[in-house]
Structures are given as C-alpha cells and as structure tokens.
C-alpha cells in the first residue's frame, strides 16, 4: 500500500507540474522540490514519488539529469563516497560500454562520470573518471531538445568496484523511472490530440465525433492505462524500490509499445497539422522515441525477455490475476 493518500498524491502531482511548468535548470528544480518537502514525499512512498516526478518531467517535455539520481541511489553502498557531483554515462547499444555513452545534461569539468565497463571475461565493474576526460557532442539527430550529449573518452580508467548485481538494480530503477517519463509524454500527447480533435471542425462537426478518430484516441488511452498499471505492478512486484529487474524490463517494454501506439495515432488524428513543426506533436514523438531507446528499446528488450524465457527463466509474473 502507498504511504501517501490520494489527496496528497493529487496535491503533490499538481505542485510538481507547476514546478516543471515554471522553468528549467537543475538548481531551480532542486530548490523548488526542496520547498515542496520532496524528501518527505520520497520517504513516504519512493515508488509514487519517482513516478510523479518522472511522469511530470515527461509531460512537460523537460529534460534534466534526475535519472542520474535514481541510478546513483542504487549504487550508494557500492561506489566510494562522492567528493563532489556525479553523473552517469548511459550505455549506447552497440557501442563499447564505458568509453562511449550518453550524458543526460550538462556537467562540470570536475563532475565524476560513473560508467560501467566490461572486462574480457564479461565481468562488469564501475569506473570513475572526471568529466574533463571526455569529449562531448550534442545529440541533435532525432530529438534536438533533449539536451543529451554523446560523450567519448580514450582515457583508460581503473575499476573502483565490481558491479555485481548493482548494475541490474541500477538499470531496473532507471528503467522504471524512464517508463514513468514515457507515460507522461504519452499522456500529454493524448491530451493534445483530444483537445485538437475536439476543437477542430470538419464537415460541420468536431473531428472527435467521427468514430475513426475517437476510436484511435480510445486505443491510445487504453495503451497508456495499461502501461501505467504495469508500472505500478512492477514497483509492487518487489519489496524494495527499484528492485525486480524482470518487472522493470516488462514495464519498459510496455511503455515502449505504448508510445509507438500513441504517437502513431496522435499524428494521424492531427492530420496535416501533426506534420508541421508548428504543432507540438512532433516534440512528443521524438522525445518518446529517444526515451524508448534509453537503457534498451522495447523491441530489443522484448527479444531479451523472449530469449530468457526460452532459456528456461521462470517468468516472474508482474501481475498476478
């Protein structure tokens, strides 16, 4: 059960929404959350706190390094104590982990970059390097507003700790947070589609009164709710916040599939308007796609799940009926 009652959740959600609406910047965000008493919210129910925070970040199409906190939080007992700020280097599928990766926002030169590296025997370990060891290049291809960058280094680093299961834990926590963010992006995109099709008239009636349109919207809604429930169940599936690598993987697959459904339908019901850069829709499309790719895209994870099942893994049920 949640340690927060419904009224509190509603109130906190509204406040966080205002925070994201008001502005950006890590410092601004941290201060505003602090004023909200965020620490207490997290203590009361870490799963709901994370879900609210990331859903709202997605809804606002904001970008930040909040995800780093979620991941680093799992590594508290593994990494040596931090002397200053830290950032996470996220792996890019296909690239050698540790030397090339994605940073989710700007870092200072003395920020410690936490990365995961794999030795020739497949043993994972954590490395720390100053940001100044990396060269970065803004990722502009798909989602130019995400604020992410591609970081590379040729500097060798010494492993500071064996990753063990902490990599699974950290990745699972990260995936659940990203799932929440994707859901937020989708919910906002659906709202845009609903308001557009309710306001726009063709043939003397609101577009949303045509079944071809309203049925697409209801399919999007059903997909979002299903993703939302899977996420809640994934948090509930494990006693500890962020645990349950399997559940997190399932939740992220569902969120990835959901964004594919919602975005495709969203663009279609906006008609030609959805194709222009003047409509906000393209921003949701590209952000959702970028988030889907982070820490494993849904197609890739679905293959992983299938392979594990075929390999004899007992399917931990995310939802028990």
């Amino acid at each position, binding site marked *: 059960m949640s340690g927060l009652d419904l009224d509190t959740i509603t109130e906190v959600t509204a406040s966080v929404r205002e925070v994201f609406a008001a502005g950006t910047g890590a410092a601004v965000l941290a201060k505003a959350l602090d004023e909200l008493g965020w620490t207490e919210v997290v203590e009361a129910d870490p799963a709901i706190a994370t879900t609210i925070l990331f859903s709202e970040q997605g809804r606002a199409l904001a970008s930040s390094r909040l995800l780093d906190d979620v991941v680093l939080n799992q590594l508290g007992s593994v990494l040596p104590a931090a002397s200053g700020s830290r950032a996470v280097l996220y792996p890019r599928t296909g690239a050698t982990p540790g030397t090339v990766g994605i940073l989710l926002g700007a870092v200072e030169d003395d920020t410690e970059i936490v990365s995961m590296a794999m030795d020739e025997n497949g043993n994972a370990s954590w490395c720390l390097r100053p940001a100044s060891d990396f060269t970065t290049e803004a990722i502009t291809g798909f989602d130019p507003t995400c604020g992410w960058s591609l970081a590379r280094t040729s500097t060798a680093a010494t492993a500071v700790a064996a990753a063990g299961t902490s990599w699974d834990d950290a990745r699972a926590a990260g995936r659940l947070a990203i799932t929440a963010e994707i859901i937020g992006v989708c919910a906002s995109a659906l709202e845009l589609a609903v308001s557009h099709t309710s306001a726009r008239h063709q*043939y003397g009636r609101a577009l949303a009164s045509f079944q071809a349109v309203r049925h697409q919207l209801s399919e999007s809604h059903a997909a979002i709710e299903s993703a939302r429930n899977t996420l809640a169940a994934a948090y509930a599936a494990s006693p500890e916040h962020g645990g349950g690598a399997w559940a997190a993987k399932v939740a992220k697959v569902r969120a990835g599939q959901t964004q594919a459904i919602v975005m495709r339908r969203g663009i279609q019901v906006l008609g030609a308007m959805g194709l222009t850069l003047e409509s906000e829709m393209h921003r949701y499309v590209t952000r959702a796609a970028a988030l889907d790719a982070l820490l494993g895209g849904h197609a890739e994870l679905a293959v992983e799940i299938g392979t594990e099942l075929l390999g004899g893994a007992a399917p931990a049920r995310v939802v028990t009926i």
Partner: protein
Amino acid sequence: MNDIETFTAEVRAFLDANAQRFPGGEAHLAWGKGDDHTGYFSDDTAEVEAAKFAAARSWQRTRYEGGFGWITGPSSYGGRELSPVHDLVYDLLEAEYDVPDTGVISLIGLGMIGPTILAHGQQAIKDRYLPAMYRGDAIACQLFSEPAAGSDLAGVTTKAVQDGDVWRLTGQKVWTSVAHQAQLGMALCRTNPDVPKHKGITAFLVDLASPGVEIRPLRQMNGGAEFNEVFLTDVVVPDDHRLGEIDGGWRVALTTLMNERASVGGENEGALARVLSDGFLASLLHETGHGADPAARRRLAEITADLTAADYLNRQTVRRLVGGAEPGPEASVSKMMWAQNLTRVAHLAAELVGPRLTADTGAWGTYSWTELLLGSPAFRILGGTEEILKNILGERVLGLPKEPVAP
C-alpha cells in the same frame, strides 16, 4: 504494329537521343551504391533545391521540344492529343533513364492545374499560360487547403469580392507545395457565404507576383520545408483570370482533383525507387546482421508479399487501361496500401538498423532511414487522409450509407 508500339518506339528514340539509360536494370539502386537517401520529402538546402527545380524545368523543356511535354494536351498548345495510357507508357519508359525528377512541376501544375485551365479557363488565359507551363517556364501550385478546411475542402473561407472588372482576394492558404518556386496559383475562394458551402465557391488563377501575396515556408516534422502558407491580402485578380462560372468553383475543383494522377507507376520515383527495388530490403536484413533472425525474416516476408502484390495490382491496372478499360477504384486502394506498406517498411528498417538510427554515425544506409521514418506519418495524411479514402471506398464503391448530417 499498333499505336502503342509505334508510340513506344518513338519515345525510346527520343529518350536515347536525350538521356542516358541506366545500365543493367536496377543495378544502380543496389545496396551501397550512390547516395543512401530514403526520403519521399526533401530536406534540401535552398541551393540544392533551386538546382533541382532548374534541372526539372530544363528537362521539361526538352520534353516539350521533343513532342512529349503534354502528351494528352491539344496540339494548339504543343500537345499530342493522345490518351492517358500513352502518358503512362511514357512514364514507364522514362523511369529506365537517368533524367531529372520533374515531380515538383508536373504532379500538380502540369498534371492537375493545366487540364483545369484547359477545361475552365478563358481563351486569352489559356493562350497565355498553357504553353508557358508545359514548356517548363511557369510553375503552378494549388491554393486549396486552409487552416480550417483540410479534408472538408468545401469549407474554404478565403474571400473574393468583385470590384468592377477585378476581384479582391483575402485569406490564408496552407499546404501549398512548391508555392515558393511557383509563378501561378489556383485559388478556391468564398464568393457567396449565404448558400450551402460548396455552392458559393469560385476558382481563380492568381499571379503569385501580385502585391499582397506573401509566401512563408512551413517546416515539416522531417525538417524539410516543401510546403508553404500563402497569405493573400487584398490581392487583385482580373476577372478574366476566373476559372469557370462565378460560384461554380466546386465543379472546377473537382476537375482538378479528378486529374490527380492515378497512383500507378509515378509515385516511387527518386529515393523510394531504391527503397522499394528488388532485394534492397533483403540487403538491409543481411547488412544489419539479421539474415538468420527468424522474427526479422518473417516481418520482411510479410512486407515483401504485400509490396509485391501491390506492384501486381499496379501492373494489372496498367494492362487494363492499355486495354481500354475505365479507371476503377484501384487508385484509392493503391494509395492506401502504398502508405501503409511504406510505413511498415520505415518501421522495419528502423528496427533492423537499431540504435544507429538515432544518431548519424556516418555508416551507409543507417541514419538515412530517418528520412523515410519521419516522412512516413505524412503518407497516410497527404493527398487524402486514410480515413477519407476509406469513406470514399465505403460509400462510392461499396455503397454504404453516408454519415448523417450533423444535427
């Protein structure tokens, strides 16, 4: 030798004399050859775009001088007075040659607006503009859609008010492709607000150099800007530039839309010809290391079957038209399937390419698929949304009842 065979020989001689034939069928489209563009829409720079338009106009002039500038048009305007089938035969033959893509001037201007001017324009206007258009000198665009009149075209609100022997036009048009390169626009305007909406529309030919015409680019989600918004502010149009009767514009617009080319053969020009050529997707499967991946193979097979069947439908349509049959509902079916199939191709390619789709690593045939992917949502919208096409098939072909009028 029948008439089509004679014509074929004539076209072949013209093309051989004026252009290079691609060697070896589709070899120039193979994996790794030439550029790796996959897009239907361009995101060219202004210079590149200008060069393409210049090349298109110059090739149109060559065609015109060779007697193929307006195959179906009257001889008084340089046409040949032949059938649409001859036109189709010409296109199919020309696809074997390395010639500039003239789609930007021919699809709308020459294919749709030219025949409309011919059918509804006044004599002086026909004499003045038609030869110029088919010689490649003047480009025409449509000023049809408006912010509030998309699928429901009869809802146009751009106003035209008569003032002596001129009309004054005020309003906003959107989704006008090539307007920024065009000299002429065919505008649908509201001339009578007091009658049922499609009875109060008049069509005009507008000189886009007139004072009060402002053209702004509209950026699409793929980053390109082939479309424009056109703002008309008290633009003066002489009455002899009116097409058809006053308040008879709906009929004129139908002529234009009926001339929207049956989607046979002509659509898969340029980059799409490569994407859809034999074996290209199979190469992608192998090049991305999915050659033995059963799930990927199955999806490729499904798409290949549907693409091939759609191609068979096009071939049969051509055969039927050549045999003298009337065009049927094939065009709507082809358009719908084309859009759905290309969308599936885009998503399959994205999945095969994987994360290299999200940033340009410079590897041939990887990031370039973003062009097709980002263009794909438009396939099911432009030229009649999928929903409208289904209404047409449901109502006009299957005879299902129309949606009741809104209360």
